């Protein structure tokens, strides 16, 4: 049952003459949550970008068995569009016919009911983050790559992120999460970079 979602071997990456990781190996199977810890500049984001295929490492093999969802530092929201329109576009990108009701319930889940039709430029940093989190609610991807998903979120929203990851995990998904706030799940694995 524990299907491998991503398998990485001998991954090596150098940025600005600094070795971020050298012959790194990791595997995430379904139900796994892997936390990436490390100080700023230790390569957490770069590793996630490598895994997502957005950044080419200097060497190594990355085997992805399933579709993935990547949430980076930048929210991926156009500021002229509303959270609803942004989410609809995002669902469309994944070639999925998601009903407006599903989109609305995702927006309700992240607590943006009142702002669903407001352009994103009127939202605060935390609300932008929440709008981006709505993507997790509608995602069918088995592997989640989250880059500091809890930045600028209040306590309620942090609980919401934990809840989303827990649900995803119990549904057989896997998650790699770069974070400075510990997820505090039972049996999470930790990879410490720059140590």
């Amino acid at each position, binding site marked *: 049952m524990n299907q491998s979602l991503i398998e990485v071997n001998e991954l090596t990456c150098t940025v600005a003459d600094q070795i971020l990781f050298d012959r790194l190996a990791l595997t995430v199977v379904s139900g796994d949550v892997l936390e990436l810890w490390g100080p700023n500049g230790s390569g957490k984001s770069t590793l996630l970008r490598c895994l*997502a295929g*957005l950044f080419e490492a200097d060497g190594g093999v990355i085997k992805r068995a399933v579709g*993935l969802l990547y949430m980076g530092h930048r929210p991926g929201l156009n500021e*002229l569009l509303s959270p609803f329109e942004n989410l609809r576009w995002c669902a469309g*990108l994944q070639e999925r016919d998601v009903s407006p009701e599903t989109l609305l319930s995702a927006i309700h889940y992240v607590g943006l009911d009142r702002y669903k039709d407001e352009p994103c430029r009127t939202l605060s940093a935390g609300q932008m983050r929440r709008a981006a989190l709505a993507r997790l609610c509608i995602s069918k991807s088995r592997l989640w790559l989250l880059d500091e998903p809890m930045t600028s979120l209040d306590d309620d929203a942090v609980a919401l992120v934990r809840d989303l990851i827990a649900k995803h995990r119990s549904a057989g998904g896997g998650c790699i999460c770069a974070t400075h706030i510990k997820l505090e799940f039972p049996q999470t694995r930790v990879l410490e970079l720059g140590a």
Partner: protein
Amino acid sequence: MGNFGVQFRRDLLVAIRGRTETANPIAFFVLALSLFVFAVGTDSETLPRVAPGVVWVVALFAAMLSTENLFHRDHDDGSLELMLLDSRPLFLGVLGKLLAHWCVSGLPVAILSPLAAVFINAPFEIITILVGTLLLGTPVLTLIGGIGAALTAGLGRGGLLLAVLVMPLYIPVLIFGSGACYRVLDGATVTGPVLWLIALLAGSITLAPFAIGAALRGSQEY
């Protein structure tokens, strides 16, 4: 249809929401042409003769002006990452984006060009061919400009670099576009330049989205 429709609809919506920015190139087109009239003078013999060339050059600059923001904002807000992570080929998505962009930049310029032509005292017989060549040529400008915009997407304001990159590639479009208009003035057949424009359009629709896709992937490497 794939992600073509998804991108087209989104970008058209963004263009409508950002009206002021969208209107910039069109306003530039009208204003620059009107200044030309003041500079050269309406009673001059010169104006009707230079008119097709002037309309084409101004249309070309208007296209370049609007191209800069094609991928820049998507790069900055992270939407581009989501587009690139889409497992389907980027080709159709990029084409959808460019079509939406053309609909609010090249198309209005082509539609306004008869008015502009009358405004700058262009001979009436060239109006049909002017609109026709602009309808064929401005999509090529958008597609070629897209390559430059994708290459400079991660560079902040790459305005000058973009101009230097795409200007040489714009020149054939300019030559055949205004060349067709002059052939009408001289009473010659326009088949040659028009066929060239069609060939350029077919070539750039087929090849430019691939180049743009590759450049966008490159722009992610910080």
